[in-house]
């Protein structure tokens, strides 16, 4: 982050309570039920700003012209600007990633000649983008519509209370994972999805079952930063938090979550084999279901204990 605050990706993810799980069979994304391993777009940044008491200016626009003009104005003051975009219109990404996905955050930190300088979280290095492409990406249609949404930091507090911010982030995470009474959200949804997978071979044609499995893997590994559907990223957060606050219990919890992440990877590995086989083999779907259920049970126990950590 900028403006004199040093904040690593894991720390921001943890304070912003980014880790989550949901499976929504009634929301179909190109014919496949939606699964997510993270919270909704925009929420992480908003919570981090609130918890660290950073003032942020956010803005949406009616027209691309106005949106680009406003961006240039802020860039002239030297501030980096975050914004929502659709990956479909980002030429610097490989075609393999370019679906119509509108909730991608990127940061523009300057303008050189007629090119904007981009810092994109999925890239190792900085890159640039032409104004026409950026305007298209910022005004993509579909769900959710970015409508040029952009944000930048206007003010930072002289001193930041990390202890409180981390504590609030962890508490909120545990609440979101454990408390939703509906089967589609939080930890409960992992068991729910496991049951669904068990019924795939009897309810779906092999091609569909295979596509459904493929989508879960993609959400977990392709979208999930750091691997294992953000579980490693959150483990890295717990470790950093433990070191920052001199809390050995958080570091122990970090190791536990790493092991759970390994279980998720194991599930994805076997799911990929099943996906490729395209056979409605009852036994292997049962096994897959059991692997997933195992992740759910371990995570439930994990978050229950994390919730009880004394502060």
């Amino acid at each position: 982050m900028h403006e004199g605050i040093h904040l690593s990706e894991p720390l921001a993810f943890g304070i912003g309570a980014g880790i989550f799980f949901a499976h929504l069979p009634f929301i179909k994304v190109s014919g496949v039920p939606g699964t997510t391993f993270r919270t909704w777009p925009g929420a992480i940044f908003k919570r981090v700003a609130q918890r660290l008491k950073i003032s942020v200016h956010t803005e949406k626009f009616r027209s691309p012209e106005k949106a680009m003009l406003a961006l240039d104005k802020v860039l002239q003051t030297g501030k980096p600007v975050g914004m929502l975009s659709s990956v479909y219109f980002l030429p610097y990404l490989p075609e393999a990633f370019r679906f119509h996905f509108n909730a991608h955050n990127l940061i523009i930190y300057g303008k050189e000649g007629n090119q904007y300088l981009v810092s994109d979280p999925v890239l190792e290095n900085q890159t640039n983008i032409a104004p026409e492409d950026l305007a298209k990406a910022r005004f993509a249609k579909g769900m959710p519509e970015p409508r040029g949404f952009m944000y930048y930091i206007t003010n930072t507090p002289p001193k930041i209370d990390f202890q409180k911010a981390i504590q609030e982030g962890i508490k909120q995470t545990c609440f979101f994972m454990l408390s939703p009474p509906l089967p589609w959200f939080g930890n409960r949804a992992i068991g729910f999805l496991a049951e669904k997978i068990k019924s795939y071979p009897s309810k779906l044609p092999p091609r569909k079952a295979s596509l459904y499995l493929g989508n879960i893997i993609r959400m977990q590994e392709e979208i999930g930063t750091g691997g294992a559907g953000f579980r490693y990223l959150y483990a890295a957060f717990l470790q950093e938090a433990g070191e920052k606050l001199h809390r050995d219990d958080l570091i122990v919890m970090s190791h536990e979550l790493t092991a759970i992440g390994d279980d998720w990877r194991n599930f994805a590995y076997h799911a990929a084999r099943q996906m490729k086989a395209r056979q409605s083999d009852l036994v292997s779907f049962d096994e897959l279901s059991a692997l997933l259920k195992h992740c759910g049970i371990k995570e439930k126990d994990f978050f229950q204990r994390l919730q009880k950590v004394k502060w």
Partner: protein
Amino acid sequence: MDINEVPQDSLHYKGRDQLKKLMYAVDQKGHYTGISSVGWEAENEATKQAWDAVEEELQQTKAFVLNGTLSPIAYFMRLKLMDVGLLASYVGKWKWQVKRHLKPKVFKRINSKTLKRYADLFGISVSDLINFGKT
């Protein structure tokens, strides 16, 4: 996951191997570090499967356009990875209007202004759109 277990399975497909992603893994001392990875077999297969499904559907749609069941708009819509809802919001029409435009009979009667809108969105000329599949 240990850093020496981070997979480096590259996939030479639609530029996938052009991009390395950041993974989080633990080093020998049990400490988390970021490490870049070119990909993982399981993930690669899922990525490829999703594109195979897109390609399959595109070929199916193409066949329907060629045999006169669907209008060329259906083909270009699939080519641009869109569905009816998304295409409708891009051309500023209602969903039911776009759905009608997918019928060859209705397609023949679309006015030039609307055709231009579709063609611009697809990045082709109006004649490319009208004459698709007529060679």
